């Protein structure tokens, strides 16, 4: 049993929980990407990474806004700025420090590919008009994130010896954080029952075979997927990195909570 095993009782509670989980993943990864601004390897990549960061934070903001309305919270900022690390529901993959360009690309590829499959499914099954509309809108951008990161996996994998070893290392290092994408706990199960989430275990093999074919094309090898998988972040058991990220993200807003900052 984790610290905060949320078991939604109603359809609305299930929806809020899903919105927050999706949003937290996107806010935290968007934050990591935003750290590249001004420090990218090439001007084009500075632009692209900032663009993806902006998309992801935008998606998070829209999801939070909807959750705030349903859950009677003041606004989207409430979730981003006034919760502690043990309240955040993002998977650990998204909170790891940005690393080098190969690490950033690999993480983006693994996450965007997961998002691609997930959103494709959700668009089919979600009945709530507002939620579905959001998913459709974000899906277009996810396709671009996937294309961008996949192209760079190919370039780095089949580029020089150095780039190949850097990106292979990134895949090896990140692989243990991919398990959380496919975990189903009580909250997800409740959401699946209400047609608000997809049974991710069903298409996990498809996801893996897409990763595999990309890696083969990039002359890289798939890490051993039976290895140890990190778990727990969805219910608040994060890595040590998230606390530092939030300390930075939240400090100004929390220092002067009564001020108008929008």
């Amino acid at each position, binding site marked *: 049993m984790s610290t905060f095993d949320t078991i939604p009782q109603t359809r609305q509670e299930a929806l809020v929980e899903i919105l927050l989980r999706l949003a937290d993943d996107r806010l935290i990864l968007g934050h990591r990407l*935003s750290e590249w601004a001004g420090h990218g*390897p090439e001007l084009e990549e500075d632009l692209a990474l900032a663009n993806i960061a*902006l998309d992801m934070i935008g998606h998070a903001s829209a999801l939070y806004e909807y959750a705030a309305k349903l859950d009677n919270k003041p606004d989207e900022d409430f979730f981003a700025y006034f919760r502690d690390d043990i309240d955040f529901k993002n998977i650990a993959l998204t909170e790891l420090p940005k690393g080098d360009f190969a690490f950033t690309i690999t993480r983006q590829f693994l996450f965007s590919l997961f998002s691609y499959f997930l959103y494709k499914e959700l668009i089919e099954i979600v009945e709530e008009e507002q939620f579905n509309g959001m998913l459709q809108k974000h899906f277009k951008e996810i396709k671009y994130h996937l294309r961008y990161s996949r192209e760079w996996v190919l370039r*780095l994998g089949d580029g*020089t010896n150095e780039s190949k070893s850097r990106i292979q290392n990134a895949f090896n290092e990140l692989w243990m954080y991919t398990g959380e994408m496919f975990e189903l706990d009580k909250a997800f199960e409740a959401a699946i029952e209400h047609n608000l989430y997809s049974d991710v275990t069903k298409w996990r093999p498809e996801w893996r075979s897409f990763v595999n074919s990309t890696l083969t094309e990039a002359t890289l090898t798939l890490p051993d997927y039976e290895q140890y998988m990190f778990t727990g972040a969805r219910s608040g058991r994060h890595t040590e990195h998230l606390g530092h990220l939030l300390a930075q993200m939240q400090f100004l807003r929390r220092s002067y909570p009564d001020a108008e900052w929008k």
Partner: protein
Amino acid sequence: MDTQKQLDDFQKRIDNGETIEPKDWMPERYRKQLVRMMSQHAHSEIVGMLPEGNWITRAPSLKRKMVLLAKVQDEAGHGLYLYSGTETLGVRRKDLIEDYIYGNAKYSSIFNYPTLTYADICVIGWLVDGAAIVNQTMLAKSSYGPYARANLRICKEESFHKKQGYEMLAKMASGTAEQKRMAQDAVNRWWWPTLMMFGPHDTDSPNSAELIKWGVKTKTNDELRQHFVDRTVMEAEAIGITLPDPDLTYNEETGHWEFGDIPWDEFWSVVKGDGPMNRERMKARRKAYEEGEWVRKAAKEYARKRELEKAS
């Protein structure tokens, strides 16, 4: 060597208000001046990402975070098309970049100041982008086509940035005591460096006359600076911000605001490389460039392999 007839014909085209395009004949000196100006402008956009990027991860609301991220992204875009514009003059982006991170090429000295509080981000939008707009509105009529068009596009985005910065500063200036303090402090620190952005007085500006003769610029540094001060005084008043110049007075006769002495010693020392952030900014840019070397090499090698495949 450029012949006198070529020079005369060129001058005639300028005087007729014609636009010079990349394939047209131009004096070597005109080309060099444009390469210098355009690349400096591009470098400034890129270095400018650093002081603002400094606050992306700490922006106090999701809305402000997105606004700032979009702004920094716009700056990368400006840098990109300014470099492309400069390349129409027969130089390579790579050489231009190496010229400023390892050599002596300049960028706007305003970015050698630190962003200490979030109010600095608002003030950069209002004052720094405001000053840039005054300058770039003029450059949008520059005689060199690619530069004029780049500035036209940049101006549109900068106007948006200025509006966003000014609006948020207005909120801070009428907000809590802490916000007011941050807002006024930021204006105090950025005001004089912003006035320096227009460059030295006309009497100390060696390039000005030539640039005006060739229609690259249409106004002098002092004219642009005056225009900026005139409109900024009103904007400051409107939001209850005091500009840190006790000599600021309205001259009924000229219809202009007169202002105190600009601290030129500070300007020249920052231009020379001795500003508070010069070394750090260059170090950050060099680090990004050097750490990106393996990525650029990989992309090149990958492209070469694909070319080979196509050929075989």
